[in-house]
């Protein structure tokens, strides 16, 4: 089955004054897919997502969202989208239920307000004024407002900021159920475990370009997932990448004649892969502010 991608971005560029925020971004998101956009602050994630939501004009390249140029989307187009922005500071002088019922009336085929309130776990706060909720609870209202219109495509810009661990788990369940219903989702997040849990594919943006993209399990290539053996010699950190960590440890013990200090065998998590991608990007582009905790390549 070949259908046109729900979101298609080609050579997307954005310039603010003399600063190039996006310098040619490409990716596609297919129907029913959950796609994560990862990257450090200021990398261009929010600029990208806001161009696709129709909030910002691009300065170059092509973008298509549900077959429409997002710079020209009308009300019919907006009725098919769900948007969860980064949190705002609205006064919120209506209750959670009033807000959801009101927003439901904007859409031709909305979900029931009470169903959505239950889905985000705010049943007990349904009749509370939004301004009296905690930050994490308000964030859940944001998410509820994003899905009330039964969107085909859902944008989630750092949706779980301020959630406690239990709320985050519940949110993940909610996203999985939306995905199971066929909703296409574009997610930005700082939590790599979240991206790993939820998304089918991801792109890492740094310095306004995509430095890696693909299925989560393949991001950064097979080499970046090679286990690392790490230990200390006279207080100095040593490490070695190897596909046979057991053998390396055996050799190490033979060599030292004793148990190595602070021995670890690390299978790189998505976070490790992500950090090494950024490090590589920064190294190639000569930026000085590299992550502080970079792994030092040890010679053997």
């Amino acid at each position, binding site marked *: 089955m070949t259908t046109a991608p729900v979101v298609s971005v080609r050579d997307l560029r954005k310039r603010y004054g003399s600063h190039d925020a996006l310098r040619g971004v490409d990716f596609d998101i297919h129907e*029913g897919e959950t796609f994560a956009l990862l990257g450090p602050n200021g990398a261009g994630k929010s600029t990208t997502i806001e161009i696709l939501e*129709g909030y910002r004009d691009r300065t170059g390249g092509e973008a298509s969202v549900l077959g429409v140029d997002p710079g020209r989307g009308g009300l019919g187009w907006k009725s*098919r989208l769900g948007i969860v922005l980064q949190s705002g500071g609205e006064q919120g002088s*209506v209750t959670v239920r009033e807000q959801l019922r009101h927003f439901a*009336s*904007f859409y031709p085929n909305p979900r029931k307000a009470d169903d959505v309130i239950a889905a985000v776990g705010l049943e007990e706060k349904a009749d509370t004024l939004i301004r009296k909720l905690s930050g994490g609870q308000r964030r859940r209202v944001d998410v509820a407002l994003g899905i009330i219109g039964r969107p085909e495509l859902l944008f989630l810009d750092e949706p779980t900021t301020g959630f406690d661990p239990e709320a985050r788990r519940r949110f993940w369940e909610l996203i999985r159920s939306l995905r199971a*219903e066929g909703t296409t989702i574009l997610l930005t997040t700082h939590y790599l475990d979240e991206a790993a849990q939820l998304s089918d594919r991801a792109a890492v943006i740094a310095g306004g370009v995509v430095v890696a993209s693909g299925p989560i399990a393949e991001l950064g290539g097979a080499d970046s997932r090679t286990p690392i053996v790490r230990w200390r010699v006279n207080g100095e950190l040593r490490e070695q990448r190897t596909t046979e960590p057991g053998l390396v440890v055996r050799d190490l013990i033979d060599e030292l004649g004793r148990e190595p200090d602070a021995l670890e065998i690390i299978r790189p998590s998505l976070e490790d892969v992500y950090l090494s991608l950024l490090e590589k990007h920064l190294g190639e582009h000569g930026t000085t502010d590299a992550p502080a905790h970079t792994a030092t390549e040890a010679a053997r």
Partner: protein
Amino acid sequence: MTTQQLTRPAAPARLANPPARTLALGLARARYEVRAYFRLGDTVFFTFLFPALLLTIFSTAFSEGTFGSPGNEVDAAQYYLPGMLAAGILLSGLQNLGVDIALERSDGTLKRLAGTPLPVTSYFLGKLGQVLVTGLLQAALLLALAAVVFRVPLPTDAAAWATFAWVFVLGVLTSAVLGIAISAVPRSGKSASAVIIPITLVLQFVSGVYLPFDQLPEWLQQVASVFPLKWFAQGMRSVFLPEEFAALEPSGEWDLGLVALVGAAWLVVGLVLTRLTFRWIRKDS
């Protein structure tokens, strides 16, 4: 893949019958806005109750004094009632909406609405509806206060009330539309009150709301005549003051035709400015 196909979100929505939808959503917005308005204590106090409070202060402070030419005097409450009604129109419309929309722009409310299929016209209708409802309640409160507490004789003929009705409706619409237009001026929500309240305050002082218009220097009267508040106050005086008070107006007449003309002109100016300048969000700011 097949299960996904079966349970996919419903087919792309048709937004049927746009004018009816825009109107229905406008009414829904008005209900929503009115409810939210009365839950904010500070707006209720500073825009809704303020004219009633000022009427009470003026009526009490000048309770010994009389206003008007010898033989045609009225007491302070009756003299100040028309001005307070006009001030209420200005506060409920221009001041309230100017500050409110600037705040909604800076706190993300407008950005959120911009991402939904709410027509911008429905948003405006909601704001107009809110101003109309709160303005009417405010006027009713002022009239009741004047009649019951300060024993102001209210007009008994239908013609006077018909004049009140059209001056009020024209005033509220013009004031509200100018409020939407002026909301683009403050650069942030924080500065909105500081930018807009001085404008409305100066207008009230030069337009015969707090100071008797006939006692202002002629040049200031002419400046004030450019702006609509002077005319709305004059229209209200024609309803609530005895006929003889017309002699105190600059032309010696109530000039209701000019009240309608200047009010309508500012309504058109406000609509054009709104059309040209209103954006849900400032792109690329």
